[in-house]
């Protein structure tokens, strides 16, 4: 995922925030995917209004004890996984 991109849900995919993190539902099946992100990524991140770098900044500001490089790596890994499963796609804002 590039930093200056937004992440959008693929057609047929919905997401909601849960206590453990994010719960994705894909009506094309398999239906459910659980992503244990706690409150680091909210479901509204996928409405396309915030870029990946916005989210990195938000997490780094919230958890100053975490190295930003580590946050970036973790987030990219999580988003790549979601993209790999066909749940989201990346759209450049540039």
């Amino acid at each position: 995922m590039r930093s200056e991109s937004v992440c959008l849900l693929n057609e047929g995919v919905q997401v909601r925030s849960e206590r453990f993190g994010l719960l994705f539902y894909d009506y094309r099946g398999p239906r459910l995917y659980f992503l244990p992100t706690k409150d680091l990524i909210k479901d509204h991140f996928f409405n396309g209004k915030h870029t990946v770098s916005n989210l990195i900044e938000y997490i780094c500001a919230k958890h100053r004890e975490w190295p930003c490089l580590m946050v970036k790596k973790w987030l990219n890994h999580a988003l790549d996984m979601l993209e790999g499963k066909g749940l989201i796609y990346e759209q450049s804002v540039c």
Partner: protein
Amino acid sequence: MSNQYVEMGLMAPVNVTWEVTYACNLSCIHCVSDSGRKKPGELTTEQCLQVIDTMSAMKVFQFNIGGGEPFMREDFPDLMDYSHEKGIVTCISTNGTLIDDEVAGRLAHKLVYMQVSLDGATPASNDAIRGKGSFRKALNALEFLSKRDIEVSVNTVLTKLSFPELDALVDLAASFGAKLRISRFRPSGRGKKNWSQLNVSREQMLSFSDWLSRHMVVSTGDSFFSVSHEDRRSLGLNMCGASKLTCCVSPLGEVYPCAFLQEREFLAGKLPEESFAEIWENSPIFHSFRDLEIKSCESCVRFDFCHGGCPAIAYHTQRRLGLPDPECLANCVSVKSLAAVGA
């Protein structure tokens, strides 16, 4: 299925079984809700719209619509349209008798799944359960739906009568571009009266379990996790989802842990008078299901596959929760072993 996250408690159901009316134009002998006539107090259109708003606000992803026959409600297509506007997927179970080309056209939406019930691959076997002429009408519905490219499956309840025709039902469904989905027969409603006559024997259940493994494209709506072999594990749940992933709203707005436990003692609340969020979060009935442990199953080698099976079957056959599903594969296997020794 990630049980650890489900067991942390979801903030809303993933799907809600919504039985929208008791009215039905058929009188199937295995009907779990004893449907027939519309009952006084069924939710009005306005109340149904409120239910949809509530579920949408909680981000419920899917309605599993049943009844009765949903299309007996004149406002049913409008209710489905409103659900789709809110982004809720609707999986509609129907006997198909009221579906014509016009209705199929109205249903042609990407968020619609249809399940047309057939309990036999011939008029003789199907109509013995569902009533005279129902086979032909169901096939007509399948034709109308498939012409509109609506995703459709044939839903069959596993009984002594349907069991010998499963292969033929797979082929019949495929001829309409549909998959076969098999549901478990449960002893509630009229099914209670006809349980001993219709329920499969243990030998048949064991044979069915093997058949399922040979037919991975056949879906089961997680009805049979207690008898599914390991190879189907990735296809669905390995535990009862009642009060954890799903719940049921009756035509009167009553909220229950699942569609097969619509008994007074399991009534968790009533819509629209009570808040669904409050019921889901705080109902003692729902909490008791979330905490339900089938202790006597915990040492079983199959515990990770079924967690004790379906509490509804256990309840209806033994009148108590917390007991093992009487039709689990471990029991079936032990029956098979005895038969082998006898042979």
